[in-house]
């Protein structure tokens, strides 16, 4: 089975702090990590290979330093890594990003299943996964929390919904996006770490793919950022301290009218 996992390098938001004076993000010293949801996607790819055989190729679109994220994926079991990177891709919104990744996956060729995290923690759009599926004209199953079985050209999986889950059957090849509940990612192995150091990372530029240049980067992106601003910070709250009963009384009397309406 040829498995492709799409991943993204994102800033580690656990390290992001707010400057209380300016109310802006303090970005200095913030490290890059693999998007938390993609960690589950990589693990699921490796598990599918362990169950059904095949190879796991991790693909990322990003700046040259995104190579680090790909190497990290190799430490936990990915076989091959592709870095889709080109100045022509800068400024891509979700439509252009989905297109570029779809073209890269087409170039990889003969893929049976594409796995994405349900969304990236920096953009939170959840649009690129379905975007890739649509550009490649593949069926999709989003919010997958369990892959039951894959056989005879079909996969059966559980898809998380607001009320519970659905058991969905899809024809292969297909694209899925996964949620955190699907597995518990393993830690890097020593063998994986050794391999990651020297593993070749395949670079793919616009010229290496059969792309329509008008669909890349800014030119290929319908959405434009027209304004950026810092939201007003929340006014400082009222904190009650002291005896529990008195605190509870204060809170109840403050809130009771609010809760009635």
């Amino acid at each position, binding site marked *: 089975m040829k498995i492709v996992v799409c991943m993204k390098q994102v800033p580690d938001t656990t390290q992001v702090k707010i400057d209380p004076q300016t109310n802006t993000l303090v970005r200095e010293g913030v490290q890059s990590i693999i998007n938390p949801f993609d960690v589950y996607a990589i693990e699921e790819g490796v598990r599918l290979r362990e169950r059904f055989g095949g190879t796991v190729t991790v693909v990322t679109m990003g*700046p040259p330093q995104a190579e680090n994220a790909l190497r990290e994926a190799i430490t936990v079991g990915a076989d091959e890594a592709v870095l889709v990177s080109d100045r022509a891709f800068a400024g891509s919104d979700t439509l252009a990003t989905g297109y570029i990744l779809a073209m890269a996956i087409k170039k990889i060729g003969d893929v049976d299943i594409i796995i994405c995290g349900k969304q990236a923690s920096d953009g939170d759009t959840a*649009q690129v996964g379905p975007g890739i599926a649509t550009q490649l004209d593949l069926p999709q199953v989003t919010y997958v929390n369990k892959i039951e079985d894959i056989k005879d050209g079909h996969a059966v999986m559980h898809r998380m919904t607001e009320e519970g889950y*659905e058991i969905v059957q899809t024809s292969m090849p297909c694209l899925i996006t996964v949620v955190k509940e699907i597995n518990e990612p393993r830690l890097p192995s020593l063998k994986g770490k050794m391999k990651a150091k020297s593993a070749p990372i395949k670079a793919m530029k616009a010229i290496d793919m059969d792309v329509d240049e008008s669909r890349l980067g800014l030119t290929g992106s319908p959405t434009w950022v027209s304004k950026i601003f*810092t939201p007003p910070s929340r006014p400082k*709250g009222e904190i009650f301290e002291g005896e529990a009963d008195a605190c509870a009384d204060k809170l109840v009397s403050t*809130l*009771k009218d609010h809760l009635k309406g």
Partner: protein
Amino acid sequence: MGIEIIKDKCTGCTICTKVCPFCALTMADKKAVIDFDKCTLCGACVDSCKFHAIELKRENSRTPNLEQYKGVWVFGEQKKGKIQSVVFELLGKGRELADKRGVELSCVVLGHNIQGCAEELIHLGADNVYIVDASELENFIDEAYTKVLVNVIRKYRPEIFLCGATVLGRSLVSRVAVKLHTGLTADCTALDIDPKEGFLMQTRPAFGGNIMATILSKNHRPQMATVRHKVFKAAVVNKSRTGKVIKETVDRTLLTSRTKILDIVEEVTATVNIAEADIIVSGGRGMKGPENFAILEELAQVLGGAVGSSRAAVDSGWMPYSHQVGQTGKTVCPKVYIACGISGQIQHLVGMQSSETIIAINKDPDAPIFTVADFGIVGDLFEVVPLLTKKFKAALNR
């Protein structure tokens, strides 16, 4: 390169270097310099420069016959014939946008045996309700829903299309926008009409929160956006309103799919969808064990709310994942969010900080949760929460 510093205009004020989310701008010889390896052409600096010294060049494609796109549309998500509550909120905002543009508000519903929905949607502000009824559309299937919706949108050409940022909505419109080759903005927290040019101004948190971006799709139609539960106020019901109901018939080939639903399982623990709850009582590591969540459930019951959880409590196996609030869980914005024994790491805060009123109960007066709280109690939650339950019960006559 698509971006350029106009050296003559740059005053060396350094504002752009602070605004850049990617640290791609530095100063050299009192002028801004762009590191093109870091720059993603996001445009944040262009907007920040008061001296118009940064230029972003675009040669964008354009939806053909763009001016023929008219009207505001809302996707009428339904389950088992019941319109989902986020649709009421979208109709409220949609009506406002349609009135500003001087156009009609329409709602499109896909499903089976759903004729009964139309009247309700008209009472909530829709001028037109488009209904596509077919047995194949009874439950949401990505492909069939996409093909049908794309077909209807191509036929009627709305200029604005809004959809709930639900599991269904996010899966569906992501596909639809690609098929229509148009822009889609996820999780908008504000929508308005640009007074000069009439564009839909779509505002959402960007770069992991804490910064807001207003996004436009100037040259593509429809301008598509998703909105989470509870962000906008629900439309007010007006039973005297009238409107048109249009039954759309679609070609059978649009109803085929390569996926099919084998079974739908509803889990008892998830009967209250926290994304739809007006009041959420959430517990974290400070709850110490799964058995202690009972006191949160009691408080939630008195307040008519649902129980949420931090990631720590889910990872410890105390609560199911469907209750998790935060970056890897759900983003919620209830009227009241009560955080009990939650320290308030940034991953949790991004999932709940847009709640209307935030209340924190924590032993540690320095816990970061107090920085976002409107009201807080420093104390032992095992003492405070039962007291609150008792006192609210009395105060609210419940």
